[in-house]
């Protein structure tokens, strides 16, 4: 018997959530006023949770490291949000969204959680429209949808290429309403540096005011971690510069198990790396694969000619192009899931067909879509469909309407016009499916400590489908946590305010202070970035799109050595009692250096290929991922002082409502 209790309610899958809501404890409105909740992070999950908890009547303290809650990195999500509305009448349903998500996650997620996610997805759209989120609409005034990878229906709601921005501003507005009412106390430019556990329950946090450097104690009856993912362990990623694992990692060190750390999403369509100076990578939304076709040249001589500049991609004839996704996966074509598309790009580039100087880029081509839309528009308008110039103009107009901001972003970065020449793209780290282990109530293994959104592990298995991160963040924050947290807080109605002058707070604060003092006093010779970049290289080369036993073992060793070197030789300028970005970064990199090792250890232990985790030793003859039945579990790691000593616990995954099959997109 595992010590992990997922607390999945009994009964048929479709009734579990309703039944659970009916049976859990509630807190009466008068008592909610006596209860404090801390929410760390203000992205879609944290922002929506803070707003909803405050609406319900709890006293919420909300923390973000950014200068405003509106700037959390959910803002950068582009393509859309899934919901099983079936507005298109194309056969969508709660079950189908559930099925696609479990299959897309390569049968490594928890059935009950995913079904609940699909169930509440429709509420999200209703809620957001009521809040004034300006989703894309058709001429009839109704909501428009588009399609994303790994599915055969159009269920993605969007607001051009800025869906995350619009949804986050919706949650931010909901927060603002509660801040104005005094129900949320907002702490911006604050970083959580520890969780305080009193009598086995999470009762507060230690935070650093990033402007003044002050170390503060904050107490509450429950703490919610909504601090996002840890992809910045790779240094280069599509995450924001400040995205970090610190809040989640400190929670882990206080007893919260960390689940499936090796499950990372490497997104197929990002702008390729241009040089050593690069600080971050930019995503080109998956929605582009609705209309863009991915290819590389069929012949090496053309690849050479492109690289030396003597040939343009537009000059390569149709028959000399290898549309490798359409070739390998005729059923899903360019809309295969992200893990499959990324690996296929790597396969072509490793074989020598990459189309830029570094050999790590493939084309994403819109010329066919421009022509198709152009002809359609000409037909609708009763104009000449054979007038090439006119068709081009009309087609480009349609593309601009759909993806204008993405095309502009591409042109600014690469200095090429994607309306005229195909985009160049390559996979990049984008999302982490792993995270803090949570039960059905979204509570971690520490009572009173919750994790929501990307910070938890629960819904996406080994690979997340496009447009599902926004769905999960808002589902957790608006519609799941506000119910489930009441079940726990119902026991706290007589507790009264949690004092901060106790030995637990004192001890946690002292630890935070001594860690900071050590970093400042170190006066080594190398900058924080030096170590972060080195860690990133190890992660990318040895724990990236393809992994094997030998590399993972050496990664574990190298990361441990790098961590030692960091503590010996890092230099943090300035002091602790002021705005000091290098100090904040140093703390975050220190945590990445521990997480990175656990990540590699988890990847080494998982001797199978599933979703984003591809072990070279476990693949089919045609190079597809090979899952193994004996690994049908969640690995949840318990902290024991060092990453190397972490203890693995297993939560077995049982599929009662879905047949576990080979995951094929052919």
């Amino acid at each position: 018997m595992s010590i992990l209790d997922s607390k999945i309610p009994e009964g048929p899958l479709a009734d579990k959530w309703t039944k659970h809501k009916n049976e859990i404890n509630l807190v009466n409105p008068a008592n909610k006023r006596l209860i404090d909740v801390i929410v760390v992070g203000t992205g879609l999950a944290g922002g929506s949770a803070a707003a909803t908890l405050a609406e319900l009547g709890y006293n919420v303290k909300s923390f973000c490291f950014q200068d405003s809650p509106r700037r959390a990195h959910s803002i950068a999500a582009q393509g859309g949000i899934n919901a099983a509305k079936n507005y298109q009448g194309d056969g969508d349903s709660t079950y189908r969204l559930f099925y696609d998500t479990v299959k897309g996650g390569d049968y490594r997620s928890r059935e009950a959680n995913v079904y609940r996610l699909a169930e509440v997805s429709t509420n999200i759209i209703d809620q957001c429209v009521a809040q004034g989120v300006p989703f894309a609409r058709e001429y009839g005034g109704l909501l428009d949808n588009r399609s994303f990878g790994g599915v055969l229906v159009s269920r993605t709601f969007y607001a051009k290429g800025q869906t995350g921005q619009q949804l986050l501003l919706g949650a931010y507005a909901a927060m603002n309403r509660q801040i104005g009412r005094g129900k949320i106390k907002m702490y911006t430019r604050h970083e959580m540096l520890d969780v305080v556990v009193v009598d086995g329950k999470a009762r507060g946090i230690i935070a650093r005011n990033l402007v003044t450097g002050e170390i503060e104690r904050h107490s509450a009856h429950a703490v919610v971690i909504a601090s996002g993912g840890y992809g910045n362990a790779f240094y280069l990623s599509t995450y924001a510069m400040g995205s970090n694992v610190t809040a989640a990692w400190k929670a882990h060190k206080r007893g919260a198990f960390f689940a499936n750390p090796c499950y990372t999403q490497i997104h197929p369509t990002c702008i390729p790396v241009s040089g050593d100076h690069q600080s971050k990578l930019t995503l080109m939304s998956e929605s582009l694969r609705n209309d863009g076709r991915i290819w590389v040249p069929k012949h090496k001589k053309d690849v050479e000619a492109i690289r030396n500049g003597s040939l343009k991609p537009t000059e390569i004839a149709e028959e000399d192009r290898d549309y490798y996704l359409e070739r390998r996966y005729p059923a899903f074509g360019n809309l295969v899931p992200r893990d499959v598309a990324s690996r296929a790009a790597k396969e072509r580039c490793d074989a020598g067909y990459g189309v830029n100087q570094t050999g790590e880029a493939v084309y994403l081509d819109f010329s066919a879509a421009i022509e198709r839309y152009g002809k359609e528009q000409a037909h609708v308008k009763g104009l000449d469909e054979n007038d090439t110039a006119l068709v081009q103009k009309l087609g480009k107009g349609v593309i601009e309407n759909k993806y204008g901001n993405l095309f502009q972003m591409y042109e600014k970065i690469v200095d090429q016009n994607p309306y005229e020449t195909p985009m160049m793209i390559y996979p990049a780290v984008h999302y982490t499916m792993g995270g803090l282990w949570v039960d059905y109530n979204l509570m971690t293994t520490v009572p009173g400590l919750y994790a929501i959104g990307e910070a938890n592990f629960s819904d996406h298995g080994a690979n997340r489908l496009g447009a599902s991160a926004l769905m999960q963040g808002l589902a957790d924050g608006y519609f799941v946590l506000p119910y489930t947290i009441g079940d726990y807080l119902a026991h706290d109605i007589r507790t009264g305010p949690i004092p901060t002058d106790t030995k637990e707070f004192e001890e946690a604060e002292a630890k935070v202070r001594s860690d900071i003092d050590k970093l400042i006093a170190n006066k080594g010779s190398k900058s924080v970035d030096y170590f972060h970049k080195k860690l990133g290289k190890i992660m990318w080369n040895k724990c990236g799109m393809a992994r094997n036993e030998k590399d993972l073992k050496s990664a574990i060793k190298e990361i441990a050595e790098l961590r030692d070197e960091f503590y010996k030789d890092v230099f943090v300028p300035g002091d602790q009692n002021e705005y000091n970005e290098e100090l904040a970064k140093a703390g975050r990199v220190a945590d990445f250096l521990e997480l990175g090792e656990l990540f590699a250890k988890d990847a080494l232990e998982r001797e199978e290929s599933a979703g984003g985790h591809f072990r070279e030793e476990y693949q089919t003859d045609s190079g597809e991922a090979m899952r193994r039945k004996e690994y049908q579990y969640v690995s949840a790691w318990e902290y024991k002082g060092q990453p190397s000593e972490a203890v693995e616990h297993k939560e077995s995954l049982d599929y009662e409502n879905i047949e576990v099959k080979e995951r094929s997109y052919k």
Partner: protein
Amino acid sequence: MMNLTLKIWRQKNANDKGKIVDYPVSGISPDMSFLEMLDVLNQELIEKGEEPVAFDHDCREGICGTCSLYINGRAHGPQTRITACQLHMRSFNDGDTIYIEPWRAKAFPVIKDLIVDRSSFDRIQQAGGFISVNTSGNTQDANAIPIEKEHADKSFDAATCIGCGACVASCKNSSAMLFVSAKVSQFALLPQGQVEATDRVLNMVKQMDAEGFGNCTNTGACEVECPKGISLENIARMNREYLAASLKG
């Protein structure tokens, strides 16, 4: 590769007087972003044991609105319709001198070097930048409220404001009218926003004035420098909303 002279505003904290300091940088690739060029400078400063230049930045893809640099006298630099993080060094020439300053406005006090405090923007939003609907999940079906595409699109255009503050920094009066009008317009164009329209515009404008932002004199600099192209039409719409609300109230 380029060699440049940077003239950067250094200010230890809010109470410090602050001054421009010269920094030469060399070996800058035209493919670098402007912020990556500053990363290069900061790494050099750290190697010399000096304090790096503090500047706000986060997503580095033009959407979070964190970066806020006044470059050669223009918010977000010489290009239009982009943020400083999207600006690339190919927009400059070898040998250039580049002035880098923080946003300058009474309502945006300097925190350190190039970082300013924009919490006044948040307080304006808290005064009315929302629709009062609880997150029960029991609102009406999303398609029960059809919205004319033209209105939906215009509402979206207004809603793309990233709250960076370039409009304020570019305005000779340090007015926040473009910022406030973007939110007022987003809701004014939607049926969901009508119910609270009167209070919203009155309360947001009142808070804007209380924060010490200046008046609008229709010079239009805000629209020119806005990285998201938020239109002046929004200010006109807000003025209409405000007038209507004042007559009602």
